[in-house]
C-alpha cells in the first residue's frame, strides 16, 4: 500500500541503529505539551457549563422563584449582580475562579470552596476504595478470561462483567444494602462512620477528611474498623461497576495482543502460555488499557454521585443531589467545575503513565 510518508531509510549496511525519531527531550516535551492541554479543556468546560446554566435564567430565580415576592426577588438579583450583561458576569466568574473563589451557596449560604474541600475528601476516599476493588477484581479476571478464551471460565467471567456494568450502581447498592445490612445485618446500612467515630475523627488536629487515613494517624483502631465496615458496601457497589468495564477492557486488549507475531515468537521459543498472557501480551496491552482507564475515571465519578446518594455518603455527589433538589445552581456549578478539573488532571496523569510504559515514547 502507499504510505504517505515513506519510512526513513534504513542504513544500507544494516549495522547502525536508526536515529531517534524525535530530536531532543522527546518525553519532557510531550509532558509539557500534554500539561498545557489541560487548560483549554478546563476552560471549555467551565465556559460551556456557565453559559448553559445561564440560558434558563439566573440562579436566584431558579432557587427562590415563587417563594419570594417579585420585588424582593429583583432586589436580591440586583444585589448579587445577576442583572448585569452576561459577558460581564462571565469574565467576573472567570476571574473569581482563578483566585479559587467559587461564590456562595444560595441554599445554606456558605462559601462554595469550603463546601468543595469538606466533601471532596469523602468523594476521594470513596473513589480510591472503589478503584482498588475495580483493579483487584477487573485486571486478574480479565487476564484469566483472555487466557481461557471461549472456555467455560471465559463465559462465566464475561457474563459476570456484563452484569456488573448492566446493573445501575444505585440498584447494586440497593441490593447490597438489602442483603448485607438489612437481612443479614453484617454491615451498616449507610453513612461513612458511626456518629461517635465521626466526632472523634473530626476532633483531630488538621484532619485530612479521609477517614481511614485519619484513624490510622491517630492510631484509633476501633475507629478504623468502623470506617472499614462502612466503606465496604459503597466501595463494592461502585467498584464492581468499574470492575466489569476493566475486565472487558483487559480481556479484549490481551486477546488482541495475544494474536500478535511477537507472542507467537515467544511461543516458538518455548515460553509458557501463562507467561505469554501475563507478560508478553499484557504489557503491550497495558498502553491502550491505561488510556481507556483514564476515561473510566470520569465514569466512576458519575457513578460516585449515585453511590453517595444511595449510601448517604456525605461527599460531593450526595451534596450535588441535595443542591439539585434545592435548585441551588451556584453550588451545582461549583461541584461540576471541580469535577471537570479533576477529570482533566487525571487524564493528564494517565497519559503520562501510558507514555512512560511505552519505550517508543520514552527513548
Amino acid at each position, binding site marked *: 500500500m502507499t504510505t504517505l510518508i515513506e519510512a526513513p531509510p534504513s542504513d544500507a549496511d544494516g549495522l547502525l541503529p536508526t536515529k531517534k525519531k524525535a530530536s531532543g527531550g522527546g518525553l519532557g516535551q510531550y509532558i509539557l505539551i500534554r500539561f498545557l492541554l489541560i487548560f483549554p479543556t478546563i476552560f471549555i468546560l467551565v465556559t460551556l457549563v456557565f453559559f448553559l446554566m445561564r440560558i434558563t435564567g439566573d440562579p436566584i430565580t431558579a432557587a427562590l422563584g415563587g417563594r419570594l415576592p417579585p420585588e424582593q426577588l429583583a432586589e436580591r438579583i440586583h444585589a448579587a449582580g445577576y442583572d448585569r450583561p452576561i459577558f460581564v458576569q462571565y469574565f467576573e466568574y472567570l476571574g473569581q475562579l482563578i483566585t479559587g473563589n467559587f461564590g456562595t451557596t444560595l441554599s445554606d449560604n456558605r462559601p462554595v470552596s469550603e463546601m468543595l474541600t469538606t466533601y471532596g475528601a469523602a468523594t476521594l476516599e470513596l473513589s480510591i476504595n472503589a478503584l482498588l476493588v475495580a483493579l483487584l477484581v477487573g485486571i486478574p479476571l480479565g487476564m484469566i478470561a483472555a487466557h481461557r478464551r471461549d472456555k467455560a471460565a471465559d463465559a462465566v467471567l*464475561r457474563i459476570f462483567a456484563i452484569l456488573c456494568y448492566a446493573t445501575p450502581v444505585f440498584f447494586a447498592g440497593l441490593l447490597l444494602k438489602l442483603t448485607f445490612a438489612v437481612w443479614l445485618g453484617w454491615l451498616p446500612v449507610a453513612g461513612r462512620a458511626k456518629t461517635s467515630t465521626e466526632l472523634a475523627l473530626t476532633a483531630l488536629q488538621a484532619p485530612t477528611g479521609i477517614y481511614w487515613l485519619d484513624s490510622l494517624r491517630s492510631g484509633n483502631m476501633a475507629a478504623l474498623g468502623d470506617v472499614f465496615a462502612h466503606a465496604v458496601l459503597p466501595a463494592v457497589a461502585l467498584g464492581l461497576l468499574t470492575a466489569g468495564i476493566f475486565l472487558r477492557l483487559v480481556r479484549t486488549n490481551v486477546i488482541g495482543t495475544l494474536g500478535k507475531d511477537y507472542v507467537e515468537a515467544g511461543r516458538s521459543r518455548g515460553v509458557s502460555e501463562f507467561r505469554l498472557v501475563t507478560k508478553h501480551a499484557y504489557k503491550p496491552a497495558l498502553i491502550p488499557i491505561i488510556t481507556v482507564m483514564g476515561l473510566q475515571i470520569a465514569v466512576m465519578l458519575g457513578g460516585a454521585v449515585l453511590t453517595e446518594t444511595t449510601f448517604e455518603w456525605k461527599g460531593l455527589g450526595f451534596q450535588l443531589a441535595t443542591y439539585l433538589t434545592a435548585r441551588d445552581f451556584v453550588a451545582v456549578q461549583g461541584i461540576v467545575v471541580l469535577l471537570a478539573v479533576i477529570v482533566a488532571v487525571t487524564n493528564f496523569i494517565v497519559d503520562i503513565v501510558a507514555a512512560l510504559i511505552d519505550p517508543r515514547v520514552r527513548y
Partner: protein
Amino acid sequence: MSIEPTIAAESRRDPWFRRLPVISHFNKSVGLQRGMLVTGLVLTGLFLLTAIFAPLIAPFGFSQISDAEGNFPAQQAPGGKHLLGTTVGGYDVFSRVVWGAQTAVLVIIVAVIMSIFIGVILGLVSGYIGGWLDRILVVVADAVYAFPSLLVAIVMAIVISGGRSSLWGGILAAAISITVVFIPQYFRVIRAETIRLKAEPFVESAKVVGASNIRIMTRHIYRNATRTLPLIFTLNASEAILTLAGLGFLGFGIEPTSAAEWGFDLNKALADTTSGIWWTGVFPGLAIVLTVVGLTLVGESINDLNDPRLRGRRKAAPGKTGPDTAGSGTAGSQAPVSAEVSSS
C-alpha cells in the same frame, strides 16, 4: 508477501436478507457466541414487546392509585391483585415496571437517532475537511467526552426543563441530555473512520480521477465509515437507559404522574429498604438490568463477530482431514490465504 486469493471469484453473494446486520451475524456465530446473541435478542425483543403492548399488559395505569374497589393499599407485599406489590404512594409496581419500558424505548429512540444524525454529519465533515473546524470540534468533543456523562446530562436537564416536566417534555429533556452526551462518541468514531478511509487507496484513486469532495464524502467514505453504527447503536442504547435511570434516580426524571420511569421508582424505593420492603426497588431494578443486559449482549456479540480476532470459530470436523471433492476447488485456497495474511 504475495496474497493471491483465487477464492471468491466464483462465490456469489448471499441473498440480501442474509446480509442484514443482525441476521448475518447470527449466521456467523457459533456455540457460546450464538448463545449470547440469542439471549440478547430474546431479552431485547421482550423489552420492545412490553413497551409496544404496555396498555394491554399492564393491569393499571402508571399513575393509577385507585380503582372501582377504592384506593390501593400502600406498600402491600407482592401477591393477589397487585402481582408485584404496591409502593408507598399506592402505585401498582407491576404496572409501573411495564409502563417504564415504554418510556425507556421512547427516550432511546429519540436520543440515539438525534445523536447519530448530528454525530455522523459532524464526524464526516470534520474528519474529511480537517483544518481549524476539525481542531475546534475535536477539542470540544474531547472535553465533553471526558466529562462524566451523568453530569453532562444533569446540566442539560437543568437547561432544558429546569429539572422536571410532563411526559413528552420529560422524554425530550432526557433524550436531548443523552444526545449531548453521545454526539461526541459518534463524532469520534466517524471522524476516526473518515480519516482512516481518507488515506485508503480507493479514496485516493477517486481523488486522482478528479472526483469532487462532496462526491468522495458521500459516495466513497460515508457508506464505508458507517458500517460500525449498528454496534454503537446497541451499545449506546444500553448506556442511554442507564443515563435515563441515573437522571431519574437523582430526581431529574419524569414526574410519576406523567410517565413511569424506573430510575425514579428506585429513588423512591431507597427509603423502603431499611424497613425491609424490597419489592418496590428490586423489580424496577431488575427491569433495568435485564434490558441493559439484553442490549449489551447483542452489541457485544456484533462487536465480537465483526472483529476477526475476537470471533470464535468452530473447530474443523475431526476425523475428516482428507480433501474431499468440494474442498479442492474454490474453498480449498481460502484457509491458507487467511493463515498467510495473518503472518504477513
